[in-house]
């Protein structure tokens, strides 16, 4: 490419500051203030644009001249492993309309607001059952990740898809491999194939013995073959549990570190809980490395010329800290109107599961806070291991006591 590789940012994903694990990498924050549309160098020697402002990220993600189709030449990838994820068997998250819309619309009814609200009582029962087990026999300490944050959304997405929850050890292991930035292409490819084969086999079996789940319905509708159903299933299964799980655990930690905000949340009702979840989504932006697109035409973005064939990285975390969109207090402020946050992305790919994620988070946090009023960390904060090494941010473990 004609433009010389930039010298400013040499490392993407950029490292966070060691002091505050909740803030985005300082490099992204600096870019937003100094040069909101800037160039960054990628691991493979190529470069792409880094877009950091709220308004610009919205503009790019809503403009269909920016493609999400990762099979296009020049599409930017943030690691060797993600190139495998993006060029092998992709699903509609990495396709453009009309193909993307065709597949997504087979699922929009399953994840619409009313349908997910109907699930609320089930999700509540589940949250209560998990806490019953966690606190049984006078136990006072547990790792919140495997005992609460992870199983809750995993059980729910299994239920919706018609995947046996008994297999969770299997798919959670594969999902960790796929989401780890440092996984080798071979590891990722193998994990992807294994999950694909498992789901294709399951789809085949559901043709003969249908249940109430989405896989069975897709099989019965007859528009997709087993491999296509498995690709959709893979996306839903992974997107459906890792994200909410990490958001739950990281939210708990963030609240424990902001006792004034925690007290405020405990005092609030359902409306305050809903608003708090939006603010936590904004503040934590767990899709920490942003989302990538490729310009298919020459586009001017806030005065910067982006040429056809150039890649763009939309940094959701930085956009969600943009003072122009979120004035007031810089940090976590549960009283803020955070509804315009971009934690679920923007444009036609905006998270399909967002209504479900919201209900899960509202129930998970609400139940935890009301049932365990003495909840606190069981280890010093400094010992918590953060998921800087994963596509989805969070904590690897969260030892708590109550």
């Amino acid at each position, binding site marked *: 490419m004609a433009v010389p590789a930039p010298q400013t940012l040499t490392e993407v994903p950029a490292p966070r500051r060691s002091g505050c694990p909740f803030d985005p990498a300082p490099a992204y924050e600096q870019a937003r203030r100094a040069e909101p549309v800037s160039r960054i160098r990628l691991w493979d020697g190529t470069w792409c644009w880094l877009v950091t402002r709220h308004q610009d990220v919205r503009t790019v993600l*809503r403009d269909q001249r920016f493609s999400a189709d990762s099979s296009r030449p020049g599409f930017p990838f943030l690691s060797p492993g993600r190139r495998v994820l993006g060029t092998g068997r992709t699903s509609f998250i990495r396709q453009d309309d009309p193909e993307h*819309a065709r597949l997504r619309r087979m699922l*929009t009814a*399953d994840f619409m607001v*009313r349908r997910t609200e109907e699930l609320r009582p089930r999700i509540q029962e589940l949250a209560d059952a998990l806490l019953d087990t966690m606190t049984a026999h006078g136990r006072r300490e547990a790792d919140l990740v495997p005992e609460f944050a992870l199983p809750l959304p995993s059980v729910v997405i299994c239920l919706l898809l018609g995947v046996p929850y008994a297999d969770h050890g299997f798919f959670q292991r594969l999902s960790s491999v796929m989401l780890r930035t440092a996984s080798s292409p071979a590891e990722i490819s193998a994990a992807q194939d294994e999950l694909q084969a498992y789901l294709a086999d399951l789809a085949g079996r559901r043709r003969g013995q249908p249940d109430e789940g989405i896989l069975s319905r897709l099989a019965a509708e007859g528009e997709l073959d087993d491999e296509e159903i498995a690709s959709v299933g893979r996306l839903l299964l992974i997107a459906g549990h890792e994200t909410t799980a990490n958001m739950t655990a990281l939210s708990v930690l963030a609240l424990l570190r902001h006792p004034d905000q925690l007290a405020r949340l405990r005092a609030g009702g359902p409306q305050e809980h809903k608003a708090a979840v939006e603010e936590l989504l904004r503040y934590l932006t767990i899709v920490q490395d942003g989302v990538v697109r490729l310009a298919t035409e020459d586009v001017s973005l806030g005065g910067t010329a982006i040429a056809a064939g150039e890649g763009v990285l939309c940094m959701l975390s930085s956009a969600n800290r943009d003072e122009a969109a979120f004035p007031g207090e810089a940090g976590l402020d549960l009283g803020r109107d955070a*509804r315009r946050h971009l934690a*679920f992305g923007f444009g*036609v790919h905006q998270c399909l599961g967002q209504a479900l994620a919201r209900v899960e988070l509202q129930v998970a946090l609400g139940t935890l806070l009301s049932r365990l009023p003495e909840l606190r960390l069981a280890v010093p904060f400094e010992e918590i291991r953060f998921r800087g090494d994963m596509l989805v941010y969070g904590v690897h473990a969260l030892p708590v006591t109550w």
Partner: protein
Amino acid sequence: MRVAVDREKCCGAGLCVLTAGGVFDQGEEDGLVVLLVAEPPAAEAEDVREAAQGCPCGAITVEETAGQ
């Protein structure tokens, strides 16, 4: 205020329903936006503007009419 929705553009994320549930709904069969009230009362105007702003797909348009 007059509201219009474009179901072709809608990606069914449901933000509009969460923001202004009295004005927007989602179709039972396809999860895509359904307009309940084309001329919402002034009390809803603020939420409707927010929903139009927030719609990820630009599927909602708002026309401000005189007197509101």
